[in-house]
């Protein structure tokens, strides 16, 4: 508390207004520029909902059909806008239902503030109706959390919550507010938080580390860049492009780095990781300098660490010091915000082209194209492939759509084949792998970018985990385009069972309902495609629709996603089939 007061000295004195805690929460949200929140009411948060009713001209609340949907919608909104997403729920089950989305936002560094109601202070610890220790439960999966029990705490804690959620490496913050603090009155003054003693969101870059990195890059014969979401979160897309072009370095993205660079940029060599592209995975183990930018060497990226880029000097541009040397030992760590550090290194780099080295990527890409990609996106076999659906969406959208995916085979195919021309256009649950993420995240993404097409690519499994959010799409006429790639299986698990469990398909076969009828029940325009001849026209019809649209594509039931780095294998053991 004292820590914040210190920073407040300089700010202008505002006139205090006497209001309830519940109204104060609304004023805090408005002061933070929030105009859209997702949530679900209940007993312990009712005073705040009563104020939401009064302030509905300034602050839109979207009633999701489940609290998990509220978190994913807030995530989708945050990922597409770069702003803080807000989700609200009541105590007890309302709060615990937020946990999956909070954990997802934590591992994928998404700025989000969750507000939960809590039983009144005098009942804390009495096992009261709908009491749960959400601060305890959410501690390991939040960047910060706090329980407000006194009305006077509201402005400072809310300001701190937003500051912490969006600053440095972003993340989710949960604020739990007891009911008495919502009812009680305070003299309300709001001042934005600009610093917290003990919290250093962005480390200061050391000039010597930037010089060392520049020397390594300048002397490299086979430099290779792998970039992640840090580029997007740090808004360093232009700096990355400038660096790649000046130093002539092939660059690959991680799954969360997708769209930070144009897909068609000649130096974009695709995606690293378990189902990434052949060339960047193989050549990770042949480069002489590996330049990691805003990525965290997730195990799905590195495969076996013992055989990961051992021949290379490694440079790590990273905002979070705890990520440095966590998984991969690095030779040079450049701490700081990517925009700042990339800008700083740019003048120190020699202008270069690495034509021969780049040609190795092209050669390997051709191998992947001939053995795999061609058959995925222009198949000649009878059954429809997921890849050709994504390709049709690329064509119909002019590569301009925001692509939201769920988790599984369709996600890997979407991330492999969707093409991007604009940053913040790929929204997927990368770290946590949360099935059910796609549909609600697409709602949030669309509401955050009404001028853009938002296409949700979802499997038949994940779709049914949050299918109830069709209610939001219907009620608010949110014009998202929903594509369910239906193979009547939990496809990715089935693929693993086929490859590693002797085809014992334990609980991966799905008997599915009539998805078109379900969408029709919500009065959403819908169509089913099971013949190749209808696909292009159906996708065009979907993209042309001004209203929400549901498209089910019956795809081949037992297709596998390749390439694949088997779990625990080396990146250079990537299998093309």
């Amino acid at each position, binding site marked *: 508390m*004292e*820590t914040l007061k*210190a920073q407040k000295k300089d700010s202008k004195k505002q006139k205090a207004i006497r209001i309830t805690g519940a109204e104060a929460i609304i004023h805090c949200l408005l002061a933070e520029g929030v105009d859209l929140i997702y949530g679900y009411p209940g007993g312990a948060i009712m005073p705040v909902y009563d104020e939401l009713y009064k302030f509905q001209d300034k602050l839109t609340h979207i009633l999701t059909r489940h609290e998990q949907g509220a978190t994913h919608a807030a995530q989708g909104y945050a990922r597409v806008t770069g702003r803080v997403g807000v989700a609200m729920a009541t105590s007890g089950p309302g709060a615990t239902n937020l946990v999956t989305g909070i954990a997802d936002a934590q591992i994928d560094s998404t700025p989000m503030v969750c507000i939960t109601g809590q039983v009144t202070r005098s009942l804390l610890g009495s096992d009261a109706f709908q009491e749960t220790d959400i*601060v*305890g439960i959410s*501690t*390991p999966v939040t*960047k*910060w*959390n*706090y*329980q407000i029990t006194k009305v006077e705490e509201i402005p400072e804690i809310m300001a701190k919550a937003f500051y*912490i959620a969006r600053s440095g490496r972003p993340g989710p913050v949960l604020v739990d507010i007891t009911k008495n603090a919502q009812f009680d009155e305070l003299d309300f003054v709001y001042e934005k938080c600009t*610093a*917290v*003693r*003990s*919290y*250093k969101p962005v480390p200061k870059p050391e000039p010597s580390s930037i010089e060392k990195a520049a020397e390594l890059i300048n002397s490299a014969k086979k430099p290779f860049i792998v970039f992640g979401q840090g580029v997007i979160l740090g808004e360093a897309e232009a700096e990355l492009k400038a660096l790649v072009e000046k130093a002539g370095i092939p660059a690959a993205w991680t799954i969360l780095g997708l769209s930070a660079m144009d897909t068609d940029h000649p130096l974009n060599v695709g995606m690293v990781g378990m189902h990434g592209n052949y060339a960047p995975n193989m050549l990770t183990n042949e480069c002489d300098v590996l330049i990691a930018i805003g990525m965290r060497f997730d195990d799905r990226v590195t495969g076996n660490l013992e055989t990961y880029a051992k021949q290379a000097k490694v440079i790590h541009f990273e905002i*979070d*010091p*705890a990520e*440095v*040397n*966590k998984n991969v030992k690095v030779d040079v760590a450049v701490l700081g915000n990517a925009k700042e550090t990339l800008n700083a290194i740019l003048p120190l780099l020699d202008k270069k082209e690495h034509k021969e080295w780049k040609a190795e990527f092209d050669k390997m890409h051709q191998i992947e194209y001939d053995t795999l990609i061609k058959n995925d996106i222009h198949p000649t076999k009878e059954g429809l492939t997921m890849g050709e659906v994504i390709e049709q969406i690329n064509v119909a959208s002019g590569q301009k759509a925001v692509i939201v995916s769920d988790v599984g085979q369709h996600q890997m195919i979407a991330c492999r084949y969707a093409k991007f021309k604009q940053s913040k256009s790929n929204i997927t649950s990368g770290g946590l792998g949360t099935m059910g993420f796609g549909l609600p995240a697409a709602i949030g993404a669309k509401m955050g970018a009404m001028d853009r097409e938002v296409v949700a690519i979802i499997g038949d499994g994940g779709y049914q985990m949050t299918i109830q959010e069709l209610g939001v799409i219907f009620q608010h006429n949110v014009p998202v385009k929903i594509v369910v790639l239906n193979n009547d299986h939990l496809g990715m698990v089935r693929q693993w069972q086929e490859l590693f469990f002797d085809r014992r398909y334990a609980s991966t076969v799905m008997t599915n309902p009539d998805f078109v009828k379900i969408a029709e029940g919500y009065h959403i325009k819908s169509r089913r495609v099971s013949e190749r001849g209808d696909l292009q026209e159906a996708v065009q019809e979907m993209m042309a629709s001004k209203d929400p649209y549901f498209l089910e594509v019956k795809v081949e039931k037992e297709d596998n996603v390749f390439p694949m780095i088997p779990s625990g294998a080396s990146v250079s053991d990537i299998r093309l089939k």
Partner: protein
Amino acid sequence: MEKQWYTISVYSENHVGLLNRISGIFLKRHINIESLNVSKSEIEGVSKFTIVVFTTEDWTRKIVGQIEKQIEVIKAYYHTDDETIYQESALFKIASHLLFDERQIQNIIKESNAQIVTVNREFFALAKTGRRHEIDEMHDALLPYGIMQFVRSGRITVTKAAMPISEILQEFQEN
């Protein structure tokens, strides 16, 4: 990498829930906390956690990184035993009649440099401060005569090298 004893010193704001947050970092990695002490520090308003673990330096460094990442943590350090001055405290509750019936007990008290904190008709209490092995030796010596209650504190340490928290706080203030 070889496992050994590390003492982690954490300077932090005094915040409800921070202990939970810090212990969760160990829990998530399945690493046991061998001893834990929380107290005030040399700086007013700043708390100090002293945590002892038996693990590799690599894990210790990663844990310290994760601890430091917590919003209310000002700075965390880790040190080996050689780099610190450390002590633990123990209390023993023993039946009073043993003091007269078992002459050897008086010798144990003298040899171990323990203090008698209180004596009454039923029991007396001994306090011993020292290294873990010294407390263990005293415990083992008293055990055959019967110990009514025993408790040992977490390790507390000061480090040989400086931990410049005031400077770090100053830096936070300036940024």
